[in-house]
């Protein structure tokens, strides 16, 4: 698989790759045995781009985010692969203080459950000061001033939100403050795990706009995790489709949306009312999302839900192959369809 990725066109761009994940496998130990939540995942994150990782619940998105922070803890284990950052080497080899310096100053994270990602007994401003102290700021109040500016930009009253306890704020405010807590440390990479999931549609698009404008302004490299193809279409430059811990398809967002190569990607696109135009045309995905214990050990992991299933799919797992420049898909089926 890695051979596919190091084709000449990729190599030409490699100077812009900030983070590259190679053959990453993460297993969770359960009573029923060990199951891989990520299996031989390869991924390149380009500088100054918004890369989206999309997949249903349980596809391994948060596991990938955790791995990028070297935060996989028991019962999970990284059983293979590397994650290298262009400036900082292999993340998975970092320990102790070096690891702490990665978390925050290099990779800033906005958590999936951002609602609950703040200490309920401490005012937000104090928690930001704690970040400053943890990362060696001589005067941590610099971070507070920074947070005030960001809060103002995100149309919140800085004095109120920074002196508030988390429970005194709305979900949308907490989400924005979660983003602020990631940004005050000036990370090179911004990692967002479903930043808009718990929000209503209006707040959701406001938060997405904020993310986009800050991404541009600060020339960040952003990894956006989502299960919503609508979000991908709105903000992402590049998209990686994850299913059952495997990469199904990847490419420029426009190309993937226009000519989805994988039946799963196609189904994800169909599931979005905003993209198909009307609500009754939107079709939910058939079958249930992947469950680690039910994933076939052999052949294509998606075949049970696939309408183009062939005999080959039962035995041989498809490898990523190139459809067009930089657009890869892992599917045996080659016919065209426009249903």
């Amino acid at each position, binding site marked *: 698989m890695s051979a596919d990725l190091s084709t000449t066109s990729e190599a030409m761009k490699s100077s812009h790759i900030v983070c590259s994940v190679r053959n990453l496998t993460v297993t969770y130990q359960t009573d029923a045995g060990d199951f891989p939540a990520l299996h031989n995942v390869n991924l390149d994150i380009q500088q100054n781009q918004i890369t989206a990782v999309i997949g249903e619940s349980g596809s391994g998105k948060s596991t990938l985010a955790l791995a990028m922070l070297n935060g996989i803890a028991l019962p999970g284990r990284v059983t293979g692969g590397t994650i290298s950052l262009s400036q900082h080497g292999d993340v998975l080899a970092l320990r102790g203080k070096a690891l702490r310096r990665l978390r925050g100053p290099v990779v800033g994270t906005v*958590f999936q459950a951002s609602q609950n990602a703040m200490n309920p007994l401490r005012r937000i401003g104090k928690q930001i000061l704690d970040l400053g102290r943890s990362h060696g700021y001589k005067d941590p109040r610099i971070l507070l001033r920074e947070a005030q500016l960001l809060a103002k930009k995100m149309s919140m009253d800085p004095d109120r939100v920074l002196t508030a*306890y988390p429970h005194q704020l709305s979900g949308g405010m907490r989400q924005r403050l979660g983003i602020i807590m990631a940004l005050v440390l000036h990370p090179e990479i911004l990692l967002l795990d479903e930043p808009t999931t718990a929000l209503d549609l209006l707040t959701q698009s406001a938060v997405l706009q904020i993310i986009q404008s800050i991404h541009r302004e600060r020339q960040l490299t952003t990894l956006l995790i989502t299960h919503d193809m609508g979000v991908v279409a709105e903000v992402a430059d590049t998209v990686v489709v994850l299913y059952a811990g495997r990469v199904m398809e990847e490419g420029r967002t426009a190309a993937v949306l226009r000519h989805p190569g994988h039946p799963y990607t196609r189904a994800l696109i169909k599931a979005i009312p905003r993209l198909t135009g009307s609500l009754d045309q939107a079709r939910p995905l058939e079958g249930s999302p992947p469950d680690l214990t039910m994933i076939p050990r052999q052949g294509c992991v998606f075949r049970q839900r696939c309408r183009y299933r062939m005999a080959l799919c039962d035995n041989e797992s498809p490898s990523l192959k190139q459809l067009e420049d930089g657009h890869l898909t892992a599917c045996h089926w080659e016919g065209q369809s426009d249903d």
Partner: protein
Amino acid sequence: MKGFWIRLVRRLAGGLIMVLAVSSFTFFLVHFMPGNPVQTKLNTLLESGTPPLQAEAQVRSMYGFVPHTPLYVQYFHYIWQILHLNLGQSISYAGVPVLHLLLKAMPWTVIMVLTGLFISFIIGIAAGVVASVNRNSRMGDGLTMLSTFLHGIPQFILALGLAYLFTTVFRVFPFGAPYNAAITPGWSAAFLASLARHAVLPIAAYAISGFGGWALAMRASVSSVLGDDYILAAELRGVTPAIRLRYIARNAILPLFTILTLSVGFMFGGSIFIETIFDYPGLGYMINSALAARDYPLMDGAFLMITLAVIIANIVADLLYTVLDPRIQRI
């Protein structure tokens, strides 16, 4: 801040109702006890030739009520007296007002119980954190086992064991009495040193008996906080281990304040054994000797004092909780 005051007033009102309930309970208990002590005392006085009016006055000042007026009159009279802090007179210390005796006994108990409680709380919490963070290691398991063991030992056995071990087998500490009788009480260094030396064992008895419970509760609480999102989030934002531990500890201690209530009651109850074993003239000792001497007014008064102490401790614990948990004030 408004929430704080509303809460305080509500708790004080609740405390007053509690005091009335306990006094009513004692009233009826003494009144309906087989061999009604009030009636018995009245009869004894009459038999010994005391004029009826004088006998009644004497019984009234002891118990606060006289048997042959209607029950409800007696009851309201009794409650009225209590609200004026008139707890009657002691029988075994003839003629001494109960309140006077209790006020003298009170400091011994309160100081010992609070010191013991404080020490057990601090050590128990530290042990609980260590046991939880080092779960599945020998130290963690050892601490958990020790806590479970100590938590299971009855207080009086613990007190007797300590007394036997450290005053008889190893003569490290003096036995009995709150201070050396040869030294005149006062603010002299010798007296204070003697006071402290005598206090070590009883305080240790309180502390050790409470320690296990705190350690086990804290261990469970820390384990649950460790699984909370904000702790993982703090870790993934790269906070220092010290800050992370502070986040964990503060969030884990909070639920323990609800147990503080139970523990204070348990500790004051334990004073009955511990003060008797170590010969301390506190409330527990007083209850025990009043029981032996059938000194009902003193017994009632002492129970009332303990009730009062527990209620006050509860109010303090509750207010502390309000201060420590910002989420409370919304309610």
